[in-house]
């Protein structure tokens, strides 16, 4: 068999191969990635485009859930305070209707209910981070006490509801406008309080009883609305769990696509180093070998 006496091309090719394997292994260890440019794995690189976008979105969805959750929890606790205030108004109304109160007492009770009315108006104007909880999309405080109005107040908020994106094609309604939380065709929370104040000021026991009954029914109505926030909170909590799951899934998908196990990378590097040294050692041994080495110089 004839052989090529010039071994340089073969040697260079072998050394280049082993050098390039070494470079690859080194880069994988340094970056922790098996795919550093699209040509390393075109399919994985393409899949990573969606993965990156999804990961970014899930991060932001989680932030949205947290923001919205605090709004919903605030609204829910405000409504609890409203119920407490209304309960206080009912007991004051009941006291006022028992027919044993002096005129001065009646005025004092009326003043206390008036105080409850003011605090409920103030609760209804609660805001978180500059956004009014019960103002729809309005940018000013939605409720103003207004003695000239028949209901004793005016609503300047809007009737809009907001839905916030908390997942791919999932958005959660995060508010109810005040016009819906505090009034309906059969109930009017602020109106009933105002009517109780008027009845107490008038001193007519039966009118006071009627007005107290209306406030009592408002309690039930507000509690119903509070259930909306409870549901939203549950939904957000379960979405948060699911988003955490998504984060884990996306991260492991990314690792599968372009990541590299550190142990594997380290093993690859060691192997590449060994191969490279072996190739160099072999070259060093073979290169200077010719027949001349074994011939004694002519005497």
């Amino acid at each position, binding site marked *: 068999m004839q052989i090529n006496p010039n071994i340089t091309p073969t040697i260079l090719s072998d050394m280049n191969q082993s050098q390039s394997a070494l470079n690859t292994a080194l880069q994988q260890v340094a970056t922790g990635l098996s795919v550093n440019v699209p040509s390393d794995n*075109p399919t994985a690189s*393409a899949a990573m485009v969606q993965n*990156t*976008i999804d990961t970014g979105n899930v991060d932001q969805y989680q932030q*949205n859930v947290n*923001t919205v959750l605090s709004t919903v929890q605030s609204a829910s606790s405000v409504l609890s305070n409203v119920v407490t205030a209304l309960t206080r108004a009912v007991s004051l109304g009941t006291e006022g209707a028992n027919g044993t109160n002096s005129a001065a007492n009646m005025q004092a009770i009326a003043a206390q209910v008036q105080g409850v009315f003011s605090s409920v108006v103030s609760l209804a104007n609660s805001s978180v981070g500059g956004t009014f909880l019960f103002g729809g999309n*309005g940018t000013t405080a939605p409720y103003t006490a207004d003695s000239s109005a028949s209901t004793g107040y005016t609503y300047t908020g809007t009737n809009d509801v907001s839905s916030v*994106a908390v997942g791919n094609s999932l*958005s959660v309604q995060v508010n109810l406008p005040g016009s819906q939380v505090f009034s309906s065709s059969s109930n009017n929370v602020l109106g009933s309080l105002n009517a109780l104040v008027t009845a107490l000021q008038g001193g007519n026991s039966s009118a006071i009883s009627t007005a107290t009954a209306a406030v009592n029914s408002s309690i039930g109505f507000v509690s119903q609305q509070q259930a909306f926030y409870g549901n939203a909170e549950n939904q957000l909590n379960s979405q948060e769990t699911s988003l955490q799951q998504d984060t884990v899934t996306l991260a492991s998908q990314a690792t599968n696509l372009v990541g590299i196990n550190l142990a594997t990378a380290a093993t690859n590097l060691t192997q590449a180093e060994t191969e490279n040294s072996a190739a160099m050692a072999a070259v060093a041994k073979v290169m200077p070998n010719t027949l001349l080495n074994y*011939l004694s110089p002519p005497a």
Partner: protein
Amino acid sequence: MGGLNTSLSIGMQALDAAQGALDVTSHNIANANTPGYSEEVVQLSANSMTMSRGQVSGGGVTLDGLQGTQNQLINLQIQQQTSLQSSTNTQSASLQQMQTFFTTTGTDVASALTALSSSLVALSASPGSSVTQQSVLASGQNLAQAFNTTANGLTSAQSTADGLVTESVAQINTLTQQIGALNGQVARLTASGQSGGAVEDQLNQSVQQLSQLTGISITQSSDGETITTGSGTPLVMGDQSFSLQTTTGSDGFQQVLDFNGKDITNSIQGGQLGGAIQVRDTTVPGLLSQLNTLASQFANSFNAVQAGGIDSNGNPGQNVFTIPINLADAASGISVAITNPALIAVSSVGSPNSNGNVASLSAVLTTALPSGQTAAMAYASLVFDVGSQAANASTQSTAIGENLLQLTNQLGATSGVNINDETANLIRFQTAYEAGARIVSTIQQLYADTMNMMT
């Protein structure tokens, strides 16, 4: 004395032959590392001997000449593979350069789409905040810049390839002139019955360099080699060479013309020139057109949704993106039209804190564009395209490299200088020379003895 004279002249011939063989061996050793050199083998033949009336006459050895060891078949295969490899390498280098623009760096299109998408999700939670609005606007600007950068990266690879076309044509012309001259020399040597030898080696070397520049086809004729491009445009015929020319085409790129001025750009394949033309006229335009379609369709869809909403000032949404009218400039020329974040149409009803249009803006990223793919899918297929082309070019180059190595080894085995062989030859011819010298001294002794007989 006739017999002794014959022996003496045979001895002299032996010395001459051994001397010639030593010269050739030394020449081989001296050129062991000369690129393209093929081993020369000394041709010896025995002279006839005649015998008449008990007397031997004639005989001895003649140094006939040198025989080259070129292997035209392997040379031809090496030239073809070299053209192929050089073309693939040129494409591979370009694609390696281009694919960096599709790598996740934070300023690439995928990163920009990600940032825009999450800034819109954030806008959903705080539609009235000027901070989140500003972040959407900034993400839009980054996306436009990412499109610009990627498109510029592609066009820059295209202009590099265009420069390579001019450069390759100039190199081809220099080489074809050299080859023409060498061809003439070889033809003259062959005509006078001599071996082309070193000139032929030089010719082969030049032809191989030419094959690195473009795909060629070679036919042998009485005038020497006829070299044409793969598609038949003559480059060298005998000692004549035909220059290629370049001229600026309607697309602003250099077109290659043959010696008659006919445009042969599209028929050139192989070699650095073929690779550069492939990158410039096929690879880059293919990728650019995908990128332009994506940029234009995404921007138009986003603008349409924006127009359907109401901005924070209560006005119908204006265009967020400005797209050049010409689709070919879409990615390189896309820009953001607004500077005021309040102009982002967050609302569908017009009340300031409403986020009714944000979901629709987000949906531009998740629903199919007119191309039938979402923006992410369209970009992902672009990434796949660049990546697989780069990977293929590099795999192909490695495969051809293996093939070439094999061929080079074959060529080396038939025509390379083996130092071990030459060393052995050196000893063989040294011994032969010594033996020849011994013949002469023996005959001299015999002459002396014969002279002494007379005294």
